[in-house]
Every structure is written in structure tokens, then in C-alpha cells.
């Protein structure tokens, strides 16, 4: 359950990051269109909100939110690293 | 008055303003938060130990807010007098309450 929550937050921040111009351009070669951007953003927020559920299921109402806060930070960190460190087709610098 | 004097005057005015804000943030801000800690501790009903703990927790946040306000206020003097009024109000509340019902 903890892992599920972590996967959801990582996916959430990945989607939110891809909704930004810079990262979308880097991965897909063009800025996101309005519809795409909305889809990515809504998907991201949905995944983020959804990640609360496994956290509370796994640890209850006191430790659940604490775990969730931790998983949000961890997921954000992983997504951040993935977006910035994994080389993409759009990179001109070596 | 030359342009240079004008610049120097403006610089000193700014430093004075910042000094006032620092005074507002640190000694005055702490005093205001502490006095509100006392006022809240007196105003909260119920167990006295509980009231004191709640008031202390709130007052820690008030310290930070006072410092933010000290720099956000339109001027240094405004920061000082607004915090002083807030402090005075809290002091009055605490004083009246302690005078009326005393302490444990």
C-alpha cells in the first residue's frame, strides 16, 4: 500500500512536470497544446489526491497523513530527478 | 542640495526604516506574541494547563507572523505602532483577567 501511494505521487508529479512547457518540449519536441496541458494537469492532481487513500488504508488516520506527506515528498523527488536527469531526445547539450 | 546629498539622505532613510522594522520584528514582535500568549491562556476555558499549552503553541506561530508583518507593513513606524497596539490590547486583557480571578 505504501508503494502504491508512492507510485501514484511519482506519477502525479511526472504528469504535472510534463505539463510545463520546458519539459514537454524536451520529451515530445513541442509545447503542450491547451487540451493536452489540461489532461496532464488534471491527471496529475487526480493521482496526487488519489494517493491519500492507500496511505490512510495502510497506516490509519494518525500515521496515514504522515506517511502521505513523506510519500508526496519522495514522489516529487523521484519525478524531479527523472525529468531533469534522464536524457531526452530534445537535448542539444551533451 | 546636490543629487548626491539626496541619494545619501534616501539611503539613510531606508536604513532607518529597516532598523525600525527589525525592532518591530524582534523585541516588539516577541513581546506582542508573548502578551497574546498570556491573553489567550487566560481567555481559553477549561483546564489551566491545557489552556497554557494551547496558547504557547499559538504564540510560536504569532512570533513568525509578527516578523512577517514587520516587513510587510507600509512603513517601519506603521509596523511598530500596529504591533504596539496589539501588544497593549493583549496586556490589558491578561491584566484584567489575572486581577479578577488570579492564578493557580
Amino acid at each position: 500500500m505504501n508503494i502504491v501511494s508512492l507510485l501514484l505521487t511519482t506519477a502525479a508529479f511526472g504528469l504535472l512536470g510534463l505539463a510545463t512547457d520546458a519539459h514537454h518540449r524536451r520529451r515530445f519536441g513541442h509545447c503542450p497544446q491547451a487540451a493536452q496541458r489540461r489532461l496532464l494537469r488534471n491527471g496529475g492532481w487526480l493521482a496526487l489526491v488519489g494517493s491519500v487513500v492507500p496511505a490512510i488504508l495502510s497506516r490509519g488516520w494518525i500515521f496515514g497523513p504522515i506517511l502521505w506527506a513523506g510519500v508526496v515528498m519522495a514522489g516529487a523527488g523521484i519525478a524531479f530527478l527523472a525529468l531533469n536527469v534522464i536524457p531526452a531526445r530534445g537535448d542539444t547539450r551533451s | 542640495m546636490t543629487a548626491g546629498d539626496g541619494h545619501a539622505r534616501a539611503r539613510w532613510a531606508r536604513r532607518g526604516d529597516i532598523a525600525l522594522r527589525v525592532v518591530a520584528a524582534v523585541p516588539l514582535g516577541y513581546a506582542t506574541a508573548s502578551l497574546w500568549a498570556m491573553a489567550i491562556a487566560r481567555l481559553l476555558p477549561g483546564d489551566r494547563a491545557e489552556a497554557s499549552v494551547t496558547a504557547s503553541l499559538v504564540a510560536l506561530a504569532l512570533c513568525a507572523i509578527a516578523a512577517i508583518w514587520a516587513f510587510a507593513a507600509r512603513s517601519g513606524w506603521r509596523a511598530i505602532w500596529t504591533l504596539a497596539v496589539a501588544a497593549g490590547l493583549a496586556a490589558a486583557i491578561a491584566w484584567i483577567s489575572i486581577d479578577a480571578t488570579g492564578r493557580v
Partner: protein
Amino acid sequence: MSKGFRQSQAFLHTWSGLLLGWILFLVFVAGTIAFWREGLNRWMRPEIARVEQPMRVLAGAQAYLARKAPDAKSWIIPVATKRSPGAQLFWVPQPKPGEERGRGRSRGRRDTQALIGADGQVAQARETRGGEFFYRFHFDLHYMPVIWARWLVGFATMVMLVAIISGIVTHKKIFKDFFTLRRARGQRSWLDGHNATAVLALPFHLMITYTGLVTLMTLLMPWAVVANYTDQKTVFAALFPTAAAIERTGRPAPLIDLRRIATDAQRRLGAPASFIEVSDPGDAAARVSVSQSANSMLSSRTPQLTYDGVTGRLVWRSPPPGAAAETAGAMVGLHAGRFAGNGGRWLYFLCGIAGTLMIASGLVLWTVKRRERLPDPTRPHVGFRVVERLNVAVVGGFPLGIACFFCANRLLPVTLHARADWEVHMLFIAWALAAAIAFVARPARVWPSLFAATGVLLVALPVYDVVATDRGLFAMLAIGDLMIAGIDATMALFGIAFLLLARRVARHRPAARRVRSARTAPAAMLEPAE
């Protein structure tokens, strides 16, 4: 949010962060390391074995104390766990007539302390402060009265809370910019790094700062108590209740086997115990108090059971705390993170590292930003030079001091008098030397040297452990002692990281600068938000 508000908070953020940043760096480094204090307590005593049977340690502790301090006023016995080096017990002797009473005075004395190891005997371990040094340092600092240190750290913590809030206000597109990381762009890259480490662990930073203030609340904000109480003892009795004290009778009576009481207490509490305090052992009025372990719940204020020391009958149970007291306890518990298992500890540790990097990058950002604006970069003004040198001395020097502290733990002779104090002196001596170099030599040279030295020492430690002790990484992995192995591995990783950092800094060639006009804008202090 108005532009004026954002600008004012930018100013507040920069200056509050700078002035207290060096102290906060020390607090964060020590506090982050302190999340592993139990492991370090063991790592720094390589002679002792892992505790497998806590009850055996307890029996040994009772036997030792019955021999050594049979007439003491009280014994304090921590219940050993797999993570602790044993039971670091201490006792309070009966006060001599006319002597001032008070527990705090004897806690530091070495002649009323002992460490009982896994086999129930006094542990033959090198004298060291272990991981406790880092825990204590991060609020008591060193070489100064603890009250001053706590006021200083408390003040710095409040400033940090203000810096975080003003940082959030001033950062216009805080979440949109989160994913941005511009490389090799000078000031912009430092800003992105500072923002990333700050925003990434923002929930942690807010939590750890505010809860840190809560741990020091009785010192920093006593006024709410003063408003309701005329003396502190009444409120302490209300918030930290204990069984009513009874007078020593003077009639000797054998103390019950503490293992029976510990087992019964753990059964009643439904959780492990952490502390056993025996008052008036050997007397008919002996009492045994058992506290539940803080590792088993969120709040740091754990339930307590008090037993009659002769018959083993339960005489008192602590009442459940009120909501406010429970909240404050939960906040202290959140700060210490003792409730967290290994995964949670790693998360706390990584967040602490993020916070440390946030502070360090903020300090460096200050100089990077201003260097780009200096009218003459070869003759910076005094303020700039002081900040730059202090950055090197603290951010470069303190980690080196810590590496030397660990080396001293391994290398100082076991028979050295006051060995534990000397390990700490070595930290400060190394740091002072590094700071001295930082103030005389050019920063561009000193940064990589200090990082390289730290890296070499940190990598050397696990190598030393493999070569010169029987507690090397592979041996510990073989017997499944993941804590010790983990510490060695983490030191090696940090050592490599410092070496890579040293190489990166040494190779850094600043981009050619545009020459700025001699007139600096008068509004340089109220800079626009980034």
C-alpha cells in the same frame, strides 16, 4: 499578492536567511546525522556485540546496580533494544545532608553512569559520546552554557520559520517553477538548486522548524504558563504527572526482579518499554516506574506505570493527557521521528539532507548573486568578503570536523583520559584549522581542498573498519547487522560525493563576465522577486 508585499518578503528572506544561515547549517547537519544516533552509538563502540536478549541486559543491570549503588536514591535503567549498545544506566546517590537536591547535576558525572552490554556485564567499550553528541549538539551546541545555546538555536529556528514563510511568499511561481533546473547558468542554477531542495521537502521543512520550536517551548515561550500559574511545579505536575512520592522507610526489603515488572508492564501497555526508574531500591518503600517506548507511538509523552518495588503490584497508571498536551507531545514526536521505522528514518534523513543543501545553497547563492553585481570583482567590499569566507569556513569546515570526529573515535587510544571529550575536541580543532585556512587562503582553492579532505576521510573510515577491525562492511552484512553495515556504506557514499564535489569545484571556470557600470542601483537591497 501585491508586488510590494512580495518585494518586502524577498528582502526579509535574504537577510534573515543569511544572518542565521551559518548557525542553521550546523543545526541541520548535526540534527540530520542525529536521526541515526542509536546506530552511531553502536558504530562508535565497535567492541560491543549487538543486544539479542534485552531481558538479559536488564537482569545484568539490576545485579550491577545492586552491587554498585544499593543505597542510591534512584536508578534509571533504559531498556535495551536491538538498536542500542546496551543499557546506558545511571543512578542518583542519596543526597548528603545539606547538599542541594536535583537530578540534573549528577547526570553528567561519569562516576554515576555505566553501560551494561549484551551479556549483562559492564561493557568494555571505548569511552565515547557516540551518536548522542550530534543529538545534543543540535540544540545545546558546545563550549557554552546550554541556556545560551538553546536561546541561540531557538532564535535561529524562529528566523528559519520566518525565512521559509517569506520564501514561499516571494517565490512567484513556486509550484510551476518546481520542475525547472537550469544547469551551468551561474546564479540561476544556484537559485534553481536552492528552490528545488526547498520546495521538494517543503512539508518537512515547515514541520521540522515549527516542531523544533515546540521542543524548546518551555524556554522560549513560558508566558502562557506564567499567566495561569504562580509557580512552575504545579503546571509540571499537571502536564507530567507521576505517582505520589513516598518517604523512604529505612526498612530494607529486597527489590523484586525487574524483569517480571518489565514483562508485566509491556503486556499491560501493549508496547515495548523504554525506561525503568527505581526509586529507593532495597527499601520497603521502593517503587518502580516503567515508561512506554517513544518508538511505539507518535507522542513523546508516553504512558507510565508505577509498581510497588517489593511486591510487584501495580499502584499507579498515568492518566491520558489532555488534547493540547497530546498535540504538543505529537509535535515533539514528529520532530524526533522516533516512531519511524527504517524506511521512515531514511525519509527523515533524506529530507534533512535536502534542508542542509537548501541552507548551504542559499548561503552560496548570496555571494554568487552579488559577485555578478560587484563593480570590481577583485576588490569586493568587506561584507562580501566576510560572508564568502564564513561560507567556506562553515559549509566547508564543519563537515571536515565531523569526519575528523569519526576518525578520532577510531584512532584515539582507548586508555586516553577523558577520551570522549577529546573526540569532540578533535572535531573543533579540525574545524578551527579549516576556518583559519578559509580566512587566509583564496576561496577558490580552499573549497575543493576542504571537500577533498572530507571525502578522503569519510572513504577511509569504512576501509579502516574492514582492515583494522572485525566490524567491516562485509562482516556485518554476513551476520545481518544492517545498521552498522549501513553506516559504513553511507559514509563511503558521502565520501565519494564529497570527492566528486571537490573535483567539480576545482574544475569550475567562471563564465566571462559582462563589465557592470560603477553605479549600483540604490534599490539593490529591495530586490525584485525571482
